[in-house]
């Protein structure tokens, strides 16, 4: 019962946060100079004043800002994200088309990062001063420090141009026709480089964290007890130590989810991955307010949900949290 009440309370807070995100961004983007009519004029190669006025009137841009905000919030309450100024079609349709590529990219990157990060961290923790541990530290630092677009371009040049193993861009091949398993394979082939690029940044953090966490746990009394009972190294590490060491990783994974989505923006741009990040980036440049706000609204929703899932899995993994530490 407590858990359900907890979920609803968190969802309530999440909703307030999402509205806050939308209002703040609405005000921020409207504070920027220029408006969508200028962008459309630019795209058209110049338009008349009357056409500019018509565009502004059509999208309600000639009304006072508080009125525009009020209308927008009222529409949001009815789950109506409005029409894209640029693409002249419902924002929900654009987001519906783009959200799954982003979710696929982010989740794959997250799984790769956590899995490889933990494996590297665990292996490094067994000999904290050994060469592998040193390698993990260097790799982590470089992976974290290198700009995403650079890592992405280097991977493309290496694995798409010099050794043409993977495609350069897109989520599926432009020439591909068909569906089902063949399509899934085509997407998986396209996913390898972008997911790896995105994973490399976060992998570094998980590797360092799990290494530190494992070193600490491996020195704990219950691990010594387990070893004293005559348990093999495998069960000691994976059953006793890792389960405890993984808690901080779960916390970080939840926190990092938002960062993953923002990292996805750059990865999507470099790899031409048709996700929400690219849509958001283009929408800023195009002053396409409804699309940008729609993306931010959905992205903040995803982050709220991801954090909730993290908290719940935390409660699942550690009974002390469920019982409030009693």
């Amino acid at each position, binding site marked *: 019962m407590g858990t359900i009440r907890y979920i609803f309370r968190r969802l309530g807070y999440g909703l307030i946060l999402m509205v806050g995100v939308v209002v703040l961004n609405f005000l921020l983007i409207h504070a*920027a*100079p*220029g*408006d*969508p009519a*200028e*962008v*459309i*004029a*630019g*795209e*058209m*190669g*110049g*338009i*008349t*004043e009357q*056409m*500019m006025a*018509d565009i502004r009137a*059509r999208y309600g841009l000639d009304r006072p800002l508080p009125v525009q905000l009020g209308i927008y919030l009222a529409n949001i309450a009815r789950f109506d994200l409005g029409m894209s100024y*640029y*693409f*002249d*079609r419902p924002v929900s349709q*654009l987001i519906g*088309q783009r959200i799954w590529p982003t979710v696929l990219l982010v989740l794959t990157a997250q799984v790769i990062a956590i899995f490889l990060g933990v494996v590297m961290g665990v292996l490094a923790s067994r000999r904290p001063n050994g060469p592998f541990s040193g390698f993990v530290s260097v790799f982590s630092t470089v992976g974290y420090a290198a700009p995403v677009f650079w890592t992405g*371009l280097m991977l*493309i*040049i290496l694995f*798409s*141009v010099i050794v*043409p193993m993977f*495609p*350069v*861009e*897109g989520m599926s*091949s*432009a*020439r591909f026709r068909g569906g089902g398993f063949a399509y899934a394979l085509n997407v998986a082939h396209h996913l390898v480089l972008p997911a790896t690029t995105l994973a490399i940044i976060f992998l570094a953090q998980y590797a360092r964290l799990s290494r530190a966490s494992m070193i600490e746990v491996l020195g704990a009394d219950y691990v010594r007890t387990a070893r004293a009972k005559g348990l093999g190294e495998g069960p000691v590490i994976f059953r006793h130590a890792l389960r405890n060491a993984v808690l901080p990783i779960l916390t970080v994974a939840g926190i990092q989810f938002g960062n993953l989505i923002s990292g996805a923006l750059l990865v999507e*741009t*470099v*790899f*031409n991955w*048709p996700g929400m990040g*690219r*849509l958001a980036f*283009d929408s*800023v*440049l195009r*002053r396409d307010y409804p699309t940008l706000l729609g993306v931010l609204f959905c992205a903040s929703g995803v982050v709220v949900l991801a954090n909730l899932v993290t908290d719940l899995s935390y409660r699942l993994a550690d009974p002390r949290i469920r019982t409030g530490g009693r």
Partner: protein
Amino acid sequence: MKLTRRILFGAVASAMALGLAPGMLAAEPRQGGELVIISTQAPRHLNPAVQSGIATGVPGTQIFASLLRYDDEWNPQPYLAESWEWADDGLSLTVNLVQNAVFHDGEPITSSDVAFSIMTIKANHPFQTMFAPVEEVETPDDHTAIFRLSHPHPALLLALSSALSPIIPEHVYGDGQDVANHPANNEPVGSGPFRLVEFRPGEQITLERFDDFFIEGRPYLDRMIIRIVRDPSTLVLAMEAGEADMLPYFSESQGIRRLEGVSGLDFTTRGYEGIGALNWLAFNTRREPLDDVRVRQAIAYAVDRDFIINALHRGTSEPQRGPIIESSPFFNPEIEAYDLDVDRANALLDEAGHERGSDGNRFTLTIDYIPGTAEQQQNVAEYIRSQLRRVGIDVDVRAAPDFPTWAGRVSSGDFDLTMDLVFNWGDPVIGVHRTYLSSNIRPVIWSNTQGYANERVDALLDEAAQEVDAERRTALYAEFQEIIADEVPIYFLNVLPYHTFHDDRLSNIPVSIWGAMQSMDEVYWSEDR
């Protein structure tokens, strides 16, 4: 003066229409295959009747046919119009349509659709000068349309070509909804060689051969895919890896030099004469000290166009000396070029009364540029800053984070100098007059934002807009170009170095004046890819 012209629809004329090199006619075109085009440009929608620009123009001209098309030497050729004839007084144009043309839903294309399309374009297209003199389009029968004009309008034929005048179905767009926002703009029922299969905004447009296209045996390709890739580096790598077959409108010099060396790829710089993309430095002639022609001339003499082309653009772009693209028959090669002459620049500034101060500076100016195209805009602005310092002009380069910011500054007249990138759009009436007519000093970009006014220029442009004699019209534009060169409201730098890279097994690459913004029904694979 010959006002009457009649061209019969035939195979030779049709081949010429496409701007084919003579040698290409020998090979037998092959049917089939698909073409993947990549582009950074994401179209808003696919209806060029209410949306100008390359992004909509490339897919739009595959989906919609126009009455005419142009060859690579600025000659109109038949397309949906099999012949046309001017009245002796130049006040009407009779167009005869091909008999067998149908829209993609099977409905016949009639003169009524032509009249509807032209009036829709007149009411909604940003280039208002294209059809301003067209009072009505009469439709005496299903295959004849008569354009009635308020005054002679020699630009009309060009305005009836390519992306400027798609023939759209009245039975779809005439349902009373606003055409500018019509749902069919995203799912068009077209009249051209390819029909739409799927349009994923910002991602990909998939087209397939329209089997009932009115030109027998065309198009040769079965499918055409336009893939949108926003990042130029990715674009180059995708081309290099063979993931796409054609990259038109590519102007980034480092990428050009890289792709030139890739085996299996070929390229052409032809096909961009119609669009006439000019890169220039504009002066706000309403502001001191730029209201003094000597100051503008001095700045022009202080900037080295050759350095910009050879160093900043790695020799990929062509020089441009005047307001009309140098490859146009209207260009006047006699005008002053303003080649680098620092001494003359200093002398002109002294003469204008701007002595150097104790710090060596005469005065300070700002320079803006369009963000996003660093090589053509920002780098040139930075170079101009360093160059003008040599003649005692201190320049602040003002960055703009994005296009609307720059557009807001320029349209409101809040600038001294600005880099700009403006298209000629074929006939001077469409893309050139707007920059110089004093009646077009308006708070919107790509109007006369320089605030330049000269009565003689106004008179010359008004006369040229109505002059049907080609020779006389050329002479009027020649004088106009001389005045602009003398008064320098703009210092012209270069033509944008647009290149079309393509798989070398592709034949009949579009090289007419409209390039990829004209039907690609003639493109074919000479061997399997």
